């Protein structure tokens, strides 16, 4: 099986504790998934500031892992030079159209800026490609189609097959990214592509009217108990989660308790 050409859209992330820029965690998972799938056939793609050092983190992931395809000595990243705060959609779409890649992986949402998670959808719409969201694993991929495991809540999985070309967004449930090593990070090649006149980087105008503020702490929702007496409302507010309503069965022998448990699990459809 020849390894398919895979592009990974990466962006710089923001560390949740220190706020320092670094790799975006979902994008790193996308890179891991791509490297595990295609090895040397992976090229990273980013639109933004060429001086962004955090992109080197992804290049540092281009090292061998036993049992996975060889990734070569030098990672490649195509960087579409673009002023911050502008719309990357048309630039990236043009690049992907001409790059000849059939599979594009990326995280679900950016960690900086708007973080709306709409970019993959805009790209897919513009390119007329398929899109699969929330990928946990790619089981198989050839030049025509890919078989994908999609992550569902509570650790469940759904198997999908999709025709290429396709954009896939990678879920947090995907395998954790490999370590980024200093050597390959410094060796990796960043090819800066200056946008052509015709491409015309669109400044993101509507965004200019938005107001960006430090995130407010969202109020914790209280268990609102409408009506009733003050005492009842007070009791409901003070009770610790759902207590009180349970059945307590004592003086059962283990056999009877086991029956009771199995019956309960069946009635709640936990056990089939």
């Amino acid at each position, binding site marked *: 099986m020849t390894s398919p050409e895979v592009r990974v859209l990466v962006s710089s*992330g923001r560390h949740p504790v220190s706020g320092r820029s670094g790799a975006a965690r979902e994008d790193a998972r996308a890179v891991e998934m791509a490297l595990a799938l295609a090895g040397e056939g992976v090229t990273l793609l980013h639109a933004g500031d060429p001086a962004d050092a955090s992109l080197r983190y992804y290049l540092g992931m281009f090292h061998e892992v036993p049992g996975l395809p060889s990734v070569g000595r030098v990672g490649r990243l195509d960087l579409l030079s673009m002023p911050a705060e502008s719309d990357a959609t048309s630039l990236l779409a043009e690049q992907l159209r001409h790059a000849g890649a059939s599979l594009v992986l990326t995280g679900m949402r950016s960690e900086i800026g708007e973080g709306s998670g*709409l970019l993959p959808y805009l790209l897919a719409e513009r390119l007329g490609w398929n899109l699969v969201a929330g990928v946990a694993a790619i089981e198989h991929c050839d030049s025509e189609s890919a078989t994908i495991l999609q992550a569902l809540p509570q650790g469940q999985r759904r198997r999908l097959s999709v025709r290429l070309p396709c954009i896939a967004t990678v879920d947090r449930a995907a395998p954790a990214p490999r370590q980024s090593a200093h050597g390959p990070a410094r060796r990796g090649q960043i090819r800066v592509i200056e946008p052509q006149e015709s491409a015309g980087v669109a400044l993101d105008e509507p965004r200019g009217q938005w107001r960006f*503020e430090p995130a407010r702490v969202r109020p914790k929702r209280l268990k609102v108990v409408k009506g009733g007496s003050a005492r009842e409302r007070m009791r409901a507010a003070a009770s610790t989660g759902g207590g009180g309503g349970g059945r307590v069965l004592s003086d059962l022998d283990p056999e009877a308790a086991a029956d009771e448990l199995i019956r309960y699990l069946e009635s709640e459809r936990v056990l089939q």
Partner: protein
Amino acid sequence: MSSGIIVRRDPRAERIRRNRLHPRHHEFCQPAARWMGPNGVMRRNPHTVAAIGPNGLRRLDRSGATVTGGPSLRSVNDESHEQRRQVTLESPDFLVAVVPECPEGRLSSHDRDLFGLARQLADRDPASSGAVVAITFDHNAPELADAGADRWLALDDDSYAGYSPETRLTALETVARSWSPRHWLLPDGPAVGSDLGRRLAVRLAGLQPGSEEARAAARVWQVDGDHCICRGGGEHRDIHRPLPQVVLALAECAEPVSETRHEARPITLDTAPVPSIRRVTDHGRVAVDPSCIALDQAPFILAGGRGIGDWPGFHETARLLGAAEGASRVAVDDGYMPRARQVGATGTFVTAGCYIAVGISGAVQHLQGIEHCQRVVAINSDPGCDMVRRADLALIGNGDAILAAVAARLEARQHEEYRHDVA
């Protein structure tokens, strides 16, 4: 005080008795069984201390055997609290479309919040009344009336089953063309549930390029008048922006509807959606080994604590139940379980639909960790422990023995099924 009995006054009770509007007035307004009369004589109320005798006559019981009627034991969840005002709307001025995710075929609390937000938008202006249209891809969505939907479009064709983003999108597009809802509300969350909303957002934006109104707002957590607040990437910034047509809202974006009940009147589309080519094929759910699911995502957890003596038996039962294994901090500290399996504030917060705690008394940190579990079963030898109090079902007894009995039953059942299959 001729009788020598000191009867203490209860000013609060007196106050409540005087106040007819007090919610507990009915409890207190019943005359007390006995009270100190104005001239110091003890009075009895024959209505409360008397009982109907065997011959049908009311008798005053002087033996003191009958308990005096205290506050009535009416349930806290009085039916009157559940009474909702029925709202019907015949000719709405505009529509607010809600596409709930309905995981597992039921409205999630996130979906209910979304309807709450929809009502907020629909009822904002008393002059023009909006109707909330629920669009589901499932025939069974019975709670829509309570959730706040005035109309209900059920698209329950087979082509919408499973993961079918293209067909669903085409249907929503048809809705948009036919009825032009003023707003579209779809859930936004960490998982794949927010997929359809983004597809719709991009599709509708494509229909009216350049319009700011068409640029969807994602991760909305508050709507205030014409503006909404979106949580930016990386959770560190809020974006205040005008409310657009398509709103992808986070959980707890609004209070769910609780005071009114709506029609959820079924409606249908006049023009059938153009069938689209399915380029993504859904091959269905994949069996996942529960022990491989990360603890925070596991739907069913069997957790053991200090009360477990027979750990091999515990593992065996977990395997037979198909449950992921969890543990209390003590069990991890004692080396019976790996650190990654520790449940609680100092370990992993779990979201299981069903959580069985065996031999875990329920430290505060542990109870915090299972706050989001829907059903909790406690198996413990101590009926007074906090875990039993928290549990929906508590079985008092020896954890090892009960688990062994469960394992024996499940094994026998599997054996039977196997024989059945072979035959």
